């Protein structure tokens, strides 16, 4: 029982970060209907920015969020304006290829700059843990989870209660109608891609203290982000949050009860089952 609760808990904590990755992807998809295959590589950039700030200036990874998030936001804005904007009306295949290409460029540029060595970011609390009711709670995972909750809450509030947030949601609901209502759809797309990139970057920063940092780290996260988003329902932020936590729990339970080498395999099988039997996801509307 203790093992079950322990792995459930760590699954939920890791799932929080997955949720953040998924939310970034789902915002981008919701507003632009573009599936961003470079999402994991944006996360990788977030990791490297955090690592660089730590290695050069000794800035705490959680504090460096204040720099990482805006930097990644601006990077996302740039990518949207220069690349994504040109393929908004292209075939979905071409959009996918473009983002795959962008991902290859980012991960390999980082590899040329920093080699493919694994980097580790070790803080004073990296391996320390709290003891609660006989369960041990990893400190960095707990901090990451709390920050995730705060950021998700803030984002949700922003989308629900501000004019810009409502405009973004309107664009996601119906691009043409939003434009007819006087919403600057292009600006919303730029904002959405910036926000999505910032979310990926924040997730990277939060993962940095507990994960190996290397140029190819993004690939598996891209795929995981899709699983999270499809599970929750494409375009739904609440769905992505739920999906993230579900995937985190599935991974950590199957690592314990199936085999640690098969935890990702279990996740992909779950993904296929969801795609086949509930393609709209847990909270999504039917896809068209």
């Amino acid at each position, binding site marked *: 029982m203790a093992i079950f609760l322990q792995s459930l808990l760590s699954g939920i904590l890791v799932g929080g970060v997955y949720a953040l990755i998924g939310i970034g992807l789902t915002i981008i998809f919701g507003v632009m209907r573009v*599936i961003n295959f470079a999402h994991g590589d944006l996360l990788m950039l977030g990791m490297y920015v955090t690592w660089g700030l730590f290695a050069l200036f000794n800035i705490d990874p959680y504090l460096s969020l204040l720099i990482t998030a805006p930097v990644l936001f601006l990077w996302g804005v740039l990518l949207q304006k220069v*690349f994504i904007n*040109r*393929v908004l009306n*292209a*075939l*979905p*295949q*071409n959009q*996918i*290829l*473009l983002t*795959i*290409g*962008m*991902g*290859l*460029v*980012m991960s*390999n*540029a980082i*590899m*040329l700059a920093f080699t*493919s060595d694994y980097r580790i970011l070790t803080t004073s609390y990296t391996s320390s843990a709290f003891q609660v009711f006989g369960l041990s709670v990893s400190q960095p995972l707990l901090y990451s989870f709390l920050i995730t909750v705060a950021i998700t809450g803030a984002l949700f509030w922003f989308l629900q209660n501000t004019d810009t947030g409502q405009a973004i949601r309107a664009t996601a609901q119906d691009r043409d109608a939003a434009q007819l209502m006087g919403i600057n759809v292009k600006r919303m797309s730029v904002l959405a891609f910036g926000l999505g990139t910032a979310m990926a970057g924040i997730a990277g920063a939060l993962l940095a203290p507990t994960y190996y940092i290397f140029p190819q780290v993004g*690939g598996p996260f891209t*795929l995981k982000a*899709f*699983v999270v988003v*499809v599970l929750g329902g494409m375009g739904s932020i609440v769905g992505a949050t739920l999906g993230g936590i579900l995937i985190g729990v599935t991974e950590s339970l199957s690592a314990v009860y199936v*085999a640690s*080498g*098969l935890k*990702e*395999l279990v996740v*992909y*099988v779950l*993904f*296929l089952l969801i*795609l*086949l039997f509930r*393609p709209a996801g847990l909270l999504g509307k039917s*896809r068209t």
Partner: protein
Amino acid sequence: MSSLLRSLRTPRGFSAPAFLAYLAVIGLVALVPQFSRKPLILHMWIMVFLAIAQGSAWNIVGGYAGQYSVGHAAYFGIGAYTTMLLLELHQIAPWYGIGLSMLNAVLLSVVIGSITFRLRGPYFVLASISMAEIIRLAALHFKDLTRGAEGILLNGIPPLETPWFTVKFLGKVPFFYTSLGLAVIVISVTWFVQHSKLGYTFQAIREDQDAAHSLGINPTLHKNLALMLSAAFTAAAGSLFALYVRFIDPNIAFGIDVSVQMVLICIIGGIGTILGPVVGSVVLVLLSESLRNPKWLVQAGLLADSSPTVAFIEARLSNAHVLFYGVLVVVVVLFAPEGFLGLLRTAVARVKKRLAAKPTPPSQPAAAA
């Protein structure tokens, strides 16, 4: 008699000059080892042939049937693993092994197809990727069958003995001819796909699945047929690759890069065309091999051994080939969505237009007078 003649009638889309040109090119290429046996040069050719085979095989389902599978590493890897395991563990010669590996891939494609073809567009892409990933992770985990991350090292290939001749698989020349043969077969199959009724149904599904369905084409069946054809030849390419490189592990055989490369070959060359994958393979292989191993340029006589370019590439750019792939894809998608072949076609059309337009102006004043 007349019915026999009719059945011998040239197939649709057949043009004698094009066919003769095709044969002439194959003949010329087949003569290459007579002139140069420098290993790096032959290596380049072999890599190009294998890339053509993979790209053309993907093109059947991706280009003609319009189903963007990004999980073809599954078939490539199953081909490579079947042939290698049969040879290493059961001493079954690879020429039988390749056949069995193609059969295996077809069976796998039926399973994968019947699951993934229920989805469309981006969902299909995601499903195909996760299928290949599931197989890669399984190959890493089930060590008893695949030896896991340790991989399979090939000790040697038995000689092929026929009543007329014996082929020893030493050096690069036998691989040059086998991979050339495979490339020629796959290109020919693509030609038949483009000009046969079966191929028309593929293209109808690509253009509008619902319209094709309403005309009595069973989309699921025909997509599966396209995938089976494609999987069989992808597996053959995977087998030859494994035999040539003599080592495979789950990441080399089933890695997502393998799938992406097949798509890139077609996109860069020109998707849904016969020559597209050929052009794409030449571009991609030249690029990646030149950066990975610039010594071939020396062997080809293009650069001197002491050339600073070679030293620079070896020191600075040996890991950069994927970066260039990425840049190439971004540029092609943004500026030439129909690939190099599309660029060429528009250029030719422009020149033709200019040539056709030129003679008219001088004649006009005369007509007016």
